[in-house]
């Protein structure tokens, strides 16, 4: 056990879990945000049916991430959750509402309008709250003696509101490129028309956040402007993806546009990670400070290494079975 840095292994697992969650729940949260703007009820049916067989896996990663944190990095769990107390509540309430609305919308006629509203509202609130968490995380947390000492609204700042909006438009973009890939006819044309506008909004937030981030903390400034020049490739790659999305959408390369949107998220995510690495609770605690006892990390690692391949296989199988376009009136529950 001593030969391996279990904390490092766990950091990779959780970082992987987070990006899996962001990418996979991202496009269906995005569809939820775009839901009220859909041209008609047929389009909403297509939107929901396009994620019905796969969205279940998404929250898997969220719960696994939460449970993994308390097992492997309890300090992150015990500082972040109190610090983000009200934001966490909003996110959970949003996720619960949209989850239940998702199921009952299929089964209802008269009350469908309510479930539509719950699905859209829940998706928006959850996405915005997650975006605020990202902003609050970059800013860091006020702590003393391994305990959060800040206030209830420390997480809600102009910067975190900006990242909140950023994630809302980001998820919307992901939802739009997904929908173009999975639909046809008027639904696809509607979604395609959204992409340039959303792309501009995403880039605007991206640029402001990128310029703002280094000034939040001297540590972040040093990381970007001192010696590690190679990390500049990350925002550069993200920008290339953005250009690529535009070009691919124009040339109707639907799969490529979606993959490049995933790329945009991945490179942005990596950029955020290197800004703060190895601090998992900025500005004071590194991942080794936050780790649980090695025997606990090891005990649960066995189970995780057993179940993650199963979840990945199951997920891949779900996507494979459900490949191809969703048509209006098809796959209806």
């Amino acid at each position, binding site marked *: 056990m001593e030969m391996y840095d279990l904390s490092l292994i766990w950091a990779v697992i959780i970082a992987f879990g987070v990006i899996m969650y962001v990418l996979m729940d991202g496009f269906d949260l995005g569809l939820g945000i775009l839901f009220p703007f859909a041209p008609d009820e047929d389009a909403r049916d297509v939107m929901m049916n396009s994620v*019905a*067989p796969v969205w*279940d*896996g998404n*929250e*898997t990663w*969220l*719960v*696994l991430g939460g*449970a*993994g944190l*308390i*097992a492997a990095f*309890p*300090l992150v*769990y*015990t500082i*972040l*959750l*109190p610090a983000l*107390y*009200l934001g*966490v*509540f909003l996110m*959970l309430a949003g996720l*619960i*509402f949209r989850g*239940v609305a*998702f*199921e*009952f919308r*299929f*089964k*209802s*006629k*008269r*009350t469908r309008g309510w479930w539509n509203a719950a699905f859209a509202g829940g998706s928006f609130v959850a996405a915005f709250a997650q975006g605020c968490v990202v902003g609050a995380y970059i800013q860091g947390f006020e702590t003393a003696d*391994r*305990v*959060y*000492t*800040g*206030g*209830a609204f420390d997480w809600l700042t102009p910067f975190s509101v900006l990242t909140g909006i950023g994630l809302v438009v980001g998820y919307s973009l992901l939802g739009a490129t997904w929908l173009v890939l999975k639909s046809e006819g008027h639904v696809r044309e509607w979604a395609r028309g959204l992409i340039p506008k959303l792309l501009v909004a995403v880039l605007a937030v991206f640029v402001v956040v990128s310029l703002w981030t280094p000034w939040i903390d001297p540590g972040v400034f040093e990381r970007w402007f001192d010696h590690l020049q190679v990390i500049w490739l990350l925002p550069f790659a993200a920008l290339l993806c953005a250009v690529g999305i535009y070009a691919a959408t124009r040339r109707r390369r639907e799969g490529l546009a979606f993959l490049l949107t995933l790329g945009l998220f991945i490179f942005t995510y990596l950029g955020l990670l290197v800004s703060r690495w190895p601090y998992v609770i900025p500005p004071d605690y590194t991942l080794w400070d936050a780790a*649980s*006892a090695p*025997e*606990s990390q090891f*005990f*649960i690692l066995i*189970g*995780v290494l*057993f*179940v993650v391949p*199963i979840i990945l296989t*199951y997920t891949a199988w*779900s996507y494979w079975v*459900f490949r191809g376009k969703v048509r209006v009136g098809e*796959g209806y*529950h």
Partner: protein
Amino acid sequence: MALDPILLSRLQFAFVVTFHAIFPVFTIGLASYVALLQGLFVATGNTVWDRLGLFWTKIFAVVFGMGVVSGIVMAFQFGTNWSNFSQFASNFIGPMLSYEVITAFFLEAGFLGVLLFGRHRVSPSVHFFAALMVAIGTFISAFWILATNSWMQTPQGYEIREGVVHVTSWVEAIFNPSFPYRFAHMALAAFLTGGFVVCGVSAWFLLRRRDVEAHKRALSMTMWLLLILAPLQAFVGDEHGLNTLEHQPMKIAAMEGNWETQSNVPLLLFALPDRDLQANRVEIGIPNGASLILRHDVDGVVPGLKEIPVEQQQPVWIVFYSFRVMVALGLLMIACAVTGLVLRRGGKLYTRRWFLHVLQIMSISPFLAVTAGWFVTEIGRSPWLVYGVLSYADAVTPSLTGGMVLATLIGYVAVYAVIFWAGVYYLFKVVRQGLDALGEGEEVHDSDRPMRPLSATHVPFDVTTASSRS
């Protein structure tokens, strides 16, 4: 009055965990029942078992879905409201909770899909096997959760270094002294819950003369089970109580409403415990009863609450009355099971309308009893979150203010009110649809998924189906 974040956090946890626990206690019992029905189908080839199995699988899917949704909140409560506890105990509870999550995922990604959607795609034996694995899976899930809770009641297998729990023996920590009793008590409670709901629903159908033959079989079989399980639960509960007497004597003192440590303690049927007075205002009891039950000797000494300072005493009356509610409901269940046995002569079990009405009402009794039982064990542990080791005051999140907790408490009540209403309303829809309409709704869509158990039922949410009955 200043809002107390500790009290409000306890209320919040009690609220979310109570609403969550209703669903798993039901699914655990129901999963075993479905496995039993599918097993009978394989063994006898009689399709009535398969039809009943399908009906109860649909209900299982909805309840399971509600349990998953309400469970998401639980995974975050330990951090948001009890962060010092999480930090203190994470080396033990972290892996425990994670293993529960892993168990659930394994279950969902594997056997639940075959159970929910594989009825016409695999052979009856394979389908039965999947049902059996789901049933076992629900018990494994409960295993991790109850091991964690039991450790908080009777901690062992650990040492504290630098203010943090370190596990010295996983086996000792998991199989701590109260765990076997709590697990057995809870498993039986889950069976009783499933059993009484099945009886109540069967009675509902018999009263309306729908699918009489199938529901007669279900009722008969389940009443036999209850005749064994209900008295067995009384025995296991008694053993659990003796275990508590050994390890958490003050919980027993509160349950018995006993203030002085003394012999010849009466078994109180009714009392008004008063913490200010440090005595009961009114008492009606059976002389020497408590001594006899707890020590098997009229002269047996029963611990009293005065052994601990007033500020460490629990809200005695809640523990006292919750315990009586649980026991009274348990006795009612036994009476119900025995009455059913008597009514079997001449088949009156299926025709006596008053009894069928009683069974309908009794179907909520296990939910009340389980809730009351958890109130006893959780409030009875007060003021300790980890018994004798960590108090509520040391466990709560330090940065929390009363206003924050109140805001989210109101929020959770609002969210759960909507979700719970929708879920229960829909559940009644599924029940009312009955067995006969199941055939045509049985097509399986490619988009149905076990991780969305609600996709296994295609009953409309808001269209009336009852009018189509004759």
